[in-house]
């Protein structure tokens, strides 16, 4: 399974990305990632969850999950993230930060 994650927007306007491939993750991490995707009901989500309310400087998330011949891309505004989806977002953000830390050191 491959997961591509991208966060854009925010007041800083920066771009944060992460790519995860279960072939390169430990069995524990793979199990955790699968659990998060399942809890998020990822493949049942609409492809776009856009905010209709006012506001500015929120983040936008793009997630693509590819498994076998299944591939799905979801775009979500920060203010629209379903509660069951948030742990997956948090995990992917932590992955971005860990990757950054590694790059720095």
């Amino acid at each position: 399974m491959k997961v591509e994650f991208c966060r854009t927007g925010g007041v800083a306007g920066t771009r944060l990305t992460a790519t995860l491939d279960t072939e390169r993750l430990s069995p524990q991490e793979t199990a955790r990632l699968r659990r998060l995707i399942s809890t998020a009901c990822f493949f049942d989500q609409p492809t776009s969850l856009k905010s209709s309310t006012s506001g500015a400087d929120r983040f936008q998330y793009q997630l693509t999950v590819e498994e076998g011949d299944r591939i799905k891309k979801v775009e979500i505004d920060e203010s629209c993230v379903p509660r069951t989806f948030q742990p997956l977002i948090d995990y992917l953000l932590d992955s971005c930060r860990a990757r950054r830390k590694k790059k720095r050191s």
Partner: protein
Amino acid sequence: MTDSGRNSTMARAGGRTARSSSDVCPIHCIIPPYMLKEIARRGSAGQQAWAWQTLTLSEQMRGQRQALSVIAAMGTTATGTKRRTIYDARNGTRLPGRMVRGEGDPRGKDRAVNEAYDGSGVTYDLYFKVFGRNSIDERGMRLDSTVHYGRNYDNAFWNGQQMVYGDGDGELFNRFTIAIDVIGHELTHGVTEYEAGLEYQDQSGALNESFSDVFGSLVKQYKRRQTAKEADWLIGKGLLARGVKGKALRSMKEPGTAYDDDILGKDPQPGHMTDYVKTRDDNGGVHINSGIPNRAFYETAIRLGGNAWAKAGQIWYATLRDKLRPASSFKDAARWTVAVARDRYGAGSLEQKAVRGGWAAVGMRV
């Protein structure tokens, strides 16, 4: 905090130009204005909110500020009166959080709380003393800020009702209240919402972002009593953590030069129309393409000299308040700022030429 919930509800929902039809109950459109005024005066908090909103949404009322003055008197605070409230989200995401400082309360030990309080105060003062505007909605709206939002949250935002600030991740970003122009930036999103209502997408969204950077920068310059020449024109200076190769989030003077870091990447902002970025990211690049109108403002202010808020700021404010519409483009902003300069200072005046020159510098000839 002694502020009445009635006033705050009315102030937030009322007086705001509609952004979506879902904000207004369709049944209320057939209620005559005299009846709406009575409801706005005597209804419950919720009734006052939609009555006020319906009145100000009327196309007939739009631009007729005198007609609204009687209604505006209801629930308006005395002009020049700040109503700041700071909340602490305690690293959670529920808003507004726990109230930790109200208007007039003494400083505490929490730097983020004090910065949000002071920064929103200077922003209020700029708008009131320089532009004659009584808070975000022109009616003394409360200035609510939440600090310590989220965990390692590297952002600040306006949610349609209040400002929200994260603490940063400590690796790339410091706490977001550290930069007063970021505070002014967020508050200005509220002003824009009540005025032009610039849609947060593509060029209108980049204009929305630019006005926030313009007035955010003016807040910083005003506090420091700097001229346009003395100002650094950097947005978010001090926000980047130690070790990050960069000066700030953005440069209005030289878009694209604020940072170039192994992790953060390179500042993607263009400073000319020929470099306009077409992207689906960031609602069509609203934080990217804002570099173009940002630079137009800088070029105008430098040509005019003196304090940037005195003339350039007045022209930009009047344009935002009276001329622009939700779908306005860069071209519209250029045309209207030139027209406002003509109306204020005369056709062919130095001021009008400066505005024209500012936009020409970024490839927008009007």
